[in-house]
């Protein structure tokens, strides 16, 4: 009695206690793997390091199923002992069984006579409790052993799946470390995140629940079938009829419900998207007088979702009664045929009872296998997404014979550098630039002019297509990426801080910094005072919301980080107007200090920075359109002059 009971729901074991069985069908209806077989094979191959344990699990599973399958047969035997006793009491003692049978025949009760003849009745004697006791003890032992093996099996399986998933997660994360920046820029962040987390979780769940269940189900079906045939081939034949019937019904219903579930998830997506948009744009919706439209659209999505989810729910709800109906049909057939056969003495009562139990055991795993195959579909789709990530082409490995840079002076030279993100769109062509140690290069241009491209090339986030970039005369491709990047300090406006204390965030990149050094960096970055106003000072935790730390203050912290790292070359991003004026002043002061004595590339917004720069690079539409000093560029009366005037001069000239 593995799953027990009439119409027992399948997925009771789902850890996470999610809304188990009904959703099993539902959740996964929309995602379909592209190449089911290949991906399943690959997923199974990830289990290879555990193959010895899996073999053991299989053996345990077989043993446990064998025990469970023999159970009803032994129970049937025990019932026979009981039945014999009951019959035996009805025949007076002293009469032999043969005499009793003959007597019955004489009275024309041939049927009962046949039945009696087939039993092991001892006339006059009641139930043989010795024999029954032995049978009961055997049963108890059998069931206990079966449970023990089942437990051992799923205990070991937990280890197998969790370790496998651990490895999968680790591989995915390490892969992230080897992917080129272009992958991250080209892919939505949410999508990558979801591959590493949600998809792997999904695989974990399925492996945990379904693999064991699938194994047990298949084994049980085979075992039960064998037992049924040994008891009564005729009844087994009748029961087998139920198989195509149940499968046919399941497939028919599932096909229809799949379609409805797909519609349900589509409409859920649409509706949730609408809710998200309207709640997010709450005030805009109001002030533009669109509330009624918002409600109308909501109602129409909501209505369609209702229709779809109702159909999905109803149709999938038919599976249960259909299965029950078929199972009961089967039950009646067995009872009737079995009854006739017992009455005619061709079968014992215990065998009929055993058979009824077997037929119950038989349909359950069939239904389970059907529903597991659904869950598997979704897991395989997830696995495919993870494998896709794992198969992405990686960054070109570092050169095998790297040169050493040591403490760089900071001479940076671009020689005939060409670069394009997309092969068909030229971006940077034959760029030449020579920066002496300690010089400042201002990069200016309108919003979205692609000022970060230069950062990407300098840091080797992207590889140039032609020419070369050298630092102190060494081609940056002849350095390891790590060595190159240690030479650069980077302070971006979109300040990146991780979940952790302010102290740890400043120390990012300098593991062995002392507290004193960190304090010094904070002071240099003008952020010490601010940190001290926080209740926990340097131990303040920064989290996602980080409501206590403004955008500008975050940038100050990253400046402190750069101070601590003390790199010979800097890449800076000046603060724009989203930072309030006082903080902006602090940032400016900190940056000026930081730039002293270092080669600096500054994405500049401030006139004074641009004025003082040794070279100005003017960018537009991703390209460097002009290059020179402030005076040179103004004299050229080109793009820069135009930009300069509109940006800084105009408001003064025509002050209203």
């Amino acid at each position: 009695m593995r799953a027990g009971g009439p119409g027992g729901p399948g997925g009771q074991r789902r850890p996470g206690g999610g809304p188990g069985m009904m959703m099993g069908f539902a959740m996964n209806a929309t995602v379909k793997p592209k190449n089911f077989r290949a991906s399943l094979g690959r997923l199974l191959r990830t289990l290879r390091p555990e193959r010895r344990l899996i073999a053991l699990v299989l053996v345990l599973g077989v043993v446990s199923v064998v025990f469970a399958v023999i159970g009803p047969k032994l129970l049937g035997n025990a019932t026979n002992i009981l039945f014999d006793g009951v019959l035996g009491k009805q025949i007076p003692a002293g009469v032999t069984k043969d005499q009793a049978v003959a007597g019955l025949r004489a009275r024309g009760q041939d049927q009962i006579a046949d039945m009696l003849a087939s039993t092991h009745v001892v006339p006059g004697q009641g139930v043989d409790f010795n024999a029954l006791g032995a049978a009961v003890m055997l049963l108890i032992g059998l069931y206990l052993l079966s449970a023990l093996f089942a437990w051992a099996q799923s205990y070991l399986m937990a280890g197998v799946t969790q370790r496998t998933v651990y490895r999968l997660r680790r591989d995915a994360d390490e892969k992230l470390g080897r992917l080129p920046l272009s992958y991250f820029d080209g892919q939505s962040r949410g999508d990558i995140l979801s591959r590493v987390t949600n998809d792997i979780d999904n695989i974990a769940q399925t492996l945990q629940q379904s693999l064991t269940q699938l194994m047990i189900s298949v084994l049980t079906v085979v075992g039960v079938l064998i037992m049924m045939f040994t008891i009564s081939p005729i009844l087994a034949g009748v029961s087998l009829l139920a198989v195509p019937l149940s499968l046919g019904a399941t497939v028919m219903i599932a096909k229809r419900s799949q379609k409805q579930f797909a519609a349900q998830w589509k409409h859920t997506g649409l509706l949730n998207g609408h809710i998200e948009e309207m709640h997010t744009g709450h005030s805009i919706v109001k002030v533009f007088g669109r509330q009624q439209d918002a409600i109308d659209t909501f109602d129409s999505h909501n209505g369609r979702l209702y229709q779809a989810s109702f159909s999905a729910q109803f149709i999938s709800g038919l599976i249960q009664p259909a299965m029950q109906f078929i199972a009961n049909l089967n039950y009646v057939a067995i009872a009737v045929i079995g009854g006739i056969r017992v009455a005619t003495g061709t079968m014992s009562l215990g065998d009929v009872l055993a058979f009824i139990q077997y037929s119950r055991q038989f349909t359950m795993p069939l239904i389970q296998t059907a529903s597991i195959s659904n869950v598997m579909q979704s897991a395989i789709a997830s696995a495919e997404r993870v494998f896709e990530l794992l198969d992405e082409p990686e960054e070109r490995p570092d050169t095998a014979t790297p040169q050493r840079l040591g403490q760089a002076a900071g001479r940076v030279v671009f020689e005939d550098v060409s670069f394009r993100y997309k092969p068909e769109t030229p971006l940077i062509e034959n760029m030449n630039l020579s920066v002496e140690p300690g010089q400042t290069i201002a990069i200016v241009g309108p919003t979205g002019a692609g000022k970060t491209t230069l950062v990407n090339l300098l840091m080797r986030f992207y590889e140039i297509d032609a020419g070369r970039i050298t630092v102190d005369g060494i081609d940056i491709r002849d350095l390891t990426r790590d060595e190159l990047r240690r030479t650069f300090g980077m302070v971006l406006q979109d300040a990146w801080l991780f979940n952790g204390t302010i102290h740890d965030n400043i120390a990012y990149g300098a593991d062995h910094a002392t507290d004193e050094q960190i304090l010094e960096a904070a002071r240099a970055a003008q952020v010490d005072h601010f940190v001290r106003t926080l209740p926990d000072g340097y131990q303040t935790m920064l989290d996602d919301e980080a409501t206590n730390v403004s955008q500008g203050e975050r940038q100050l912290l990253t400046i402190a980080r750069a101070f601590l790292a003390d790199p010979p070359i800097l890449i800076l991003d000046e603060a724009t107007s989203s930072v309030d004026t006082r903080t902006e002043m602090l940032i400016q002061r900190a940056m000026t200090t930081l730039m002293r004595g270092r080669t600096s590339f500054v994405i500049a917004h401030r006139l004074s920075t641009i004025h003082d720069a040794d070279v100005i690079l003017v960018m537009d539409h991703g390209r460097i359109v002009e290059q020179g000093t402030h005076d040179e560029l103004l004299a050229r009366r080109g793009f820069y002059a135009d930009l300069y005037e509109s940006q800084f001069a105009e408001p003064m000239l025509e002050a209203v």
Partner: protein
Amino acid sequence: MVDLLKRYLAPYRRELALVIGLLFVQSIANLYLPELNANIINNGVVRGDLDYIWRAGAVMLLVTVVFAGASVVGAYWGARVAMGFGRDLRSAVFRKVQTFSQVEVNHFGTPSLITRNTNDVQQVQQFIVMALAMMISAPILAIGGTIMALRQDVPLSAMLLVIIPLMGLVIGLIITRAIPQFQAMQLKIDRINLVVREVLSGVRVVRAFVRTRQEERRFDDANRDLTATALRVNRLFSLMMPALTVIMNLSTVAALWFGAIRVDGGAMPIGNFTAFLQYIIQILFGVMMGTVMFVMVPRAAVSAGRVQEVLQAEPSVSDPAVPQAPPRGQEVVEFRDVEFRYPGAEEPVLRGISFEARPGETTAIVGSTGSGKSTLVNLLTRFYDVTGGAVLIDGVDVRELRRDDLWSRIGVVAQRALLFTGTVASNLRFGRGSASDEDLWRALAIAQGEFVRDMPGGLDAEISQGGTNVSGGQRQRLAIARALVKRPEVYIFDDSFSALDVKTDAKLRAALRREVASATVLVVAQRVATIMQADRIVVLDAGRIVGIGTHPELMITCATYREIVESQLAGTEVAA
């Protein structure tokens, strides 16, 4: 939760009664089958009465048909009730949120409102689905099974006194241990998500600082931690099925042994014994379902509570009972000694704010972050209501106007330019559905939105949710164009030029000045260049007005203003 269910299931009272009735029929049928089977054995098989077997078999089939029929009809109405409930509840929450002012939106937080409107409703709905499937049939099975078992043989039923508590105990023990583990596991999954999210968003920094290895270690720690907990949970759960199976099986064996004693003593016919076995299994099954339900209730209750909170919140801003007719005048906006404080806050955000903004003029509001600039304009649109003083349009307090009347005359460009799924055109027509294509192009020309011509499809170019497929600057320009298309009498630009480079900003403002010559314009800005030409500049500091005047005036009279200007412009320009 009970309130919520009562209220939103009320319309489905009749259907619900029908479903419960049908479930009852199903359970009875289910319980009756073993009895019939017992009869077949007692009266048919044992007595060799084939006729009886046939007759009882026919009855059994009939019962089966009734059962299946009840199940199908029950599934139909059950689905109607559960999904209808979900639909109604979702709709109620959505409509409720529409009545909220910014105070309530802030109180819950937008993400939370979204979750409550979607996930939480879904959870409660799922609960009803499960409840209809299990909660009702579990007790019927358990109680019905007990009654039937008692009918078969009373002394033998005494077994149940041992088995049921034992089963409840086993399930209870495992589940109570598992729940805290599950919670811990969820936290650890969150932790993994966090680490990956950070690595993804900071990929440039991680690589620039050569921290890939350390980040991998951080991930590995989280991964190990999660794996350990997941292992514990799953190992705990690996006990569940074997334990339940063994209890069921041993019950069967016990029934066999004690039953044999009763049968041998002639106290019980043998057919009853087989039926008894089946009833025991049904009872245990009922107990199992019941326990699972118990685990589900707290989760659903949490969701229901969160939904209920939204439904019970009272919007703090509402239309007046007797609204004034909207003034048809010059659209003079006046702040009269306005004070505003957030509910429960000690200090007001704004106080003593008095100034006028006149048609044909631009009134700018400047000040450092947190000085209350955005709050100030939100009082005009009644996203918040003042807590002291009044905001008036042409002498009428905005609180005495219907909000739709008020909003129809105001065009807002918010700090965060938000676009909606659709096309460029559908976004631009947001405030005036009847606007012609020429109107749209004209607005785009003013808002420096010519880039639309280069988008595939032009005005029909797709805009994805939130407008994420256009850049921040483009989004702002489209948001400005959207407000222009509406042609309101009052414009509010709430830091709407921040994502533009200064060149575009200047061009846009020049075009804007010509377009909205007769309108009342309020501009909130951080960048001084944006507001220097304004007719009137209101300087805020810590919620108070510290200066009002034109740029040249303020340069002389207002120290705060001078500080702001000097910090943004190099000395030469200021003097120019």
